[in-house]
């Protein structure tokens, strides 16, 4: 077996095309940018017959060049991936081999986009996302990682080697290196090279996405539950409650995040059980949220409300109890037969500290929105009808605040991903062999000046996911402002 080059046989004709189109794109962008200060902008002129005409010829000319160059770059990239899937393994280089391995992800992405674009008029805000290029790019990037995490975490597909297995002789080897003779494994190469402990970087990045995609949205969701449950009454009632809660939120916000992590996630503090107490406190909020949500809506129909509350609270309560009850911590009260599941304690600690850091910001956003909305007419109407305060907060104000909250939710997932990476970067919480991106970057950066390739793939993976979430939020904001 030959070691793989980056582009293999297709590089011979595709690489020059790609380089030329990238150069064209960069050049035209720079010209355009400089020109925008000297030449008049494109203007629309309305003609007497009711049509519009564009003026400003030099601008539209350069704009066309940019568009063509961009299309060329995109087309070249698609060709790399497509040829990689179609050509036999090894012929299309590392990129081709990766593209082949990620085939389920491509199929998933194409299906998602095709179905969403076909039915976009029936899908509300989600469908409108497909009207904005920025939103689509962001959504594509996010879904790319979601599918990777789904296939790798759910079905153990996509990875080429065990992310923890070490193969001697492959320590710090460059991408595309061939496995030594006689090593078991279906894949004859380390596609992105080996890391400092001779493990496959490609598989570790793929497995790492599972941890990030599982924790970041869930932690953000919990932070939103806490922030909403406390922010709504603070904004609605105001007064002493607001003063106290705002003071507490500002207190947490004034804490340097890294210091907080170092104080919360060190083994000594974990041994005292403080994170377990915090988990027990923070995880109550979703239960409170759902209980109040249902109770305020249906309390006039007890026949409907009572069974509903019993079911919902029963399920949530059981989840809550089995989540916080764990052998070896301060809470260990559930009999093993009832205890549904145990989460890795390190992950739980990380989860709790991320929720704790995020919820004050959500609290402030929700409080600000409520302060803005609670003088509206529909709130006054509900008050006149004699609705309860919690009904007004949860069923009148909250749905009307959903736009900014959804946008912030996307941004915050990205921010949580960055925080998780920070924790990994300092080696806090997760076990050192964990393949999550932060820990892998931390592993790689120690030898960065000698071998650069182990740190780059997780760094670029994290960047692309966070970028995707930011673009998605931008697209959502743009589209939700349109109506």
């Amino acid at each position, binding site marked *: 077996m030959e070691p793989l080059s980056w582009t293999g046989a297709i590089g011979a004709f595709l690489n020059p095309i790609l380089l030329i189109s990238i150069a064209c794109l960069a050049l035209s962008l720079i010209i*355009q940018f400089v020109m925008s200060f000297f030449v008049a902008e494109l203007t629309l002129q309305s003609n007497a017959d009711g049509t519009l005409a564009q003026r400003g010829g030099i601008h539209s000319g350069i704009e066309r060049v940019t568009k063509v160059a961009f299309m060329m770059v995109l087309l070249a990239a698609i060709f790399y991936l497509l040829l990689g899937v179609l050509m036999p393994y090894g012929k299309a280089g590392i990129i081709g081999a990766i593209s082949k391995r990620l085939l389920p992800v491509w199929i998933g992405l194409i299906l998602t986009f095709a179905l969403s674009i076909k039915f976009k008029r029936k899908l509300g805000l989600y469908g409108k996302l497909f009207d904005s290029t920025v939103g689509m790019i962001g959504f594509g990037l996010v879904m790319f990682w979601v599918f990777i995490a789904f296939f790798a975490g759910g079905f153990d597909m996509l990875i080429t080697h065990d992310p923890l297995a070490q193969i001697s002789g492959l320590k710090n080897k460059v991408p595309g290196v061939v496995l030594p003779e006689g090593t078991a494994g279906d894949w004859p190469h380390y596609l992105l090279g080996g890391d400092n402990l001779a493990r496959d970087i490609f598989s570790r990045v793929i497995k790492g996405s599972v941890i990030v995609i599982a924790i970041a949205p869930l932690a953000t969701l919990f932070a939103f539950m806490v922030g909403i449950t406390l922010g709504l009454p603070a904004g609605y009632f105001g007064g002493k409650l607001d003063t106290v809660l705002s003071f507490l939120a500002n207190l947490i916000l004034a804490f340097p995040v890294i210091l907080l992590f170092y104080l919360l996630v060190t083994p000594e503090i974990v041994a005292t059980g403080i994170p377990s107490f915090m988990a027990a406190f923070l995880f109550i909020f979703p239960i409170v949220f759902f209980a109040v949500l249902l109770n305020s809506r249906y309390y006039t129909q007890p026949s409907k409300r009572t069974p509903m509350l019993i079911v919902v609270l029963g399920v949530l309560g059981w989840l809550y109890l089995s989540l916080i009850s764990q052998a070896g911590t301060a809470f260990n009260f559930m009999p093993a037969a009832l205890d549904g599941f145990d989460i890795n304690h390190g992950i739980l600690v990380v989860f709790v500290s991320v929720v704790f850091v995020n919820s004050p910001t959500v609290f402030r956003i929700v409080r600000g929105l409520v302060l803005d909305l609670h003088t509206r007419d529909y709130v006054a109407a509900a008050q006149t009808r004699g609705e309860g305060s919690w009904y007004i907060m949860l069923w009148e104000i909250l749905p009307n605040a959903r736009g900014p909250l959804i946008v912030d939710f996307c941004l915050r997932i990205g921010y949580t991903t960055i925080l998780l990476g920070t924790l990994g970067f300092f080696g806090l919480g997760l076990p050192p062999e964990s393949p999550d991106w932060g820990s892998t970057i931390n592993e790689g950066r120690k030898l960065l000046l000698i071998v650069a390739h182990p740190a780059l793939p997780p760094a670029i993976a994290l960047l692309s996911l966070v970028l995707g979430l930011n673009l998605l939020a931008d697209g959502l904001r743009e589209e939700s402002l349109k109506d």
Partner: protein
Amino acid sequence: MGLFILRRLGVMILTAICLTFVVFWLTNLTPNLEKLAKTQGNARMSDEAVVTFLENRGYSQPLPIKYGQWIGLLPGYVIEGTDGELRGRCAEPGMNPTDAPKFCGVLQGEWGFSTRFKEDVSQIISTRLGHTAKLMGLVMLVMVPGALIIGVLAGMREGSRTDRTLSTFSIISTATPEYVSGVVLIALFGTATFGMQIFKGNANSAMDNATFENFTLPVLTIALYGMGYIARMTRASMTEVMTAQYIRTARLKGVAFRTIVLKHALRNALIAPFTVIMLQFPWLLNGVVIVESLFSYKGFGWTLVEAASTNDIELLLGVSVVSVIVVLSTQLISDIGYVFLNPRIRIS
């Protein structure tokens, strides 16, 4: 105005007390103290020996009293140990505890002694802060003008090609945390992998002698992450100002676009970014910790990591006090500055 500042100051002091108390409590939890006893005394100490070790050194007093002594509002302990030795909190080595000053805490300037560096905490913090100040000064010099220019250029013509290009840049920069951009920048420009080895990937030598070669990458790494956020805020504020009535009036009067932007819009558009820049400080502190560990630049952030990972309680407390003060005072400046700069609030 005076009353407002006083009230803000009061809240700030209350916040500072609460925060330092929380840090004090977390660093003085029993497992931390036991670890301290074992590293300071003897690694194979028995449990009883640990207890007497801590009792003799005043660690077993109730938490509020310990906190009061550390702050300097309560007189330091003088304890006759079980081994017959008299120890006082305020006594320098070799001094009789009964002759030592009564109060010695943060307020008196006695910040304690670092077990990691074997040096006075105040000494360590002042030198390390000097290094970090150098880094931050350069970061501010790069970041603030860059971000303001990008934001104003993007915001003056909303939706134009320039706006879209610059906004994309700021989104990318906010999506790149320091540990990603730092790693990528080092790999690109600090190693020979891509054939562009222009800078050094290690800033250790920059502490005494900062040059273009060894200081560019750390400064750029921190500046890039903050830049995007400030630029986006500036852009938002600029677009809002550009749709205001008085700008339209000026345009209709035929004032040149350049004059409108520079003379009419800019001053009002820069009020909001000022607040944002001030509130960026806590995040910059984050960036400093990451970048200083990444480039092994031994400043304040590096000290924080070092103190936290070696269970150096007094140093960690000192570092937290400084960072809490920095964060709170920037918040205060941002509040006061906002009121001061904004005539609509100042006059009413």
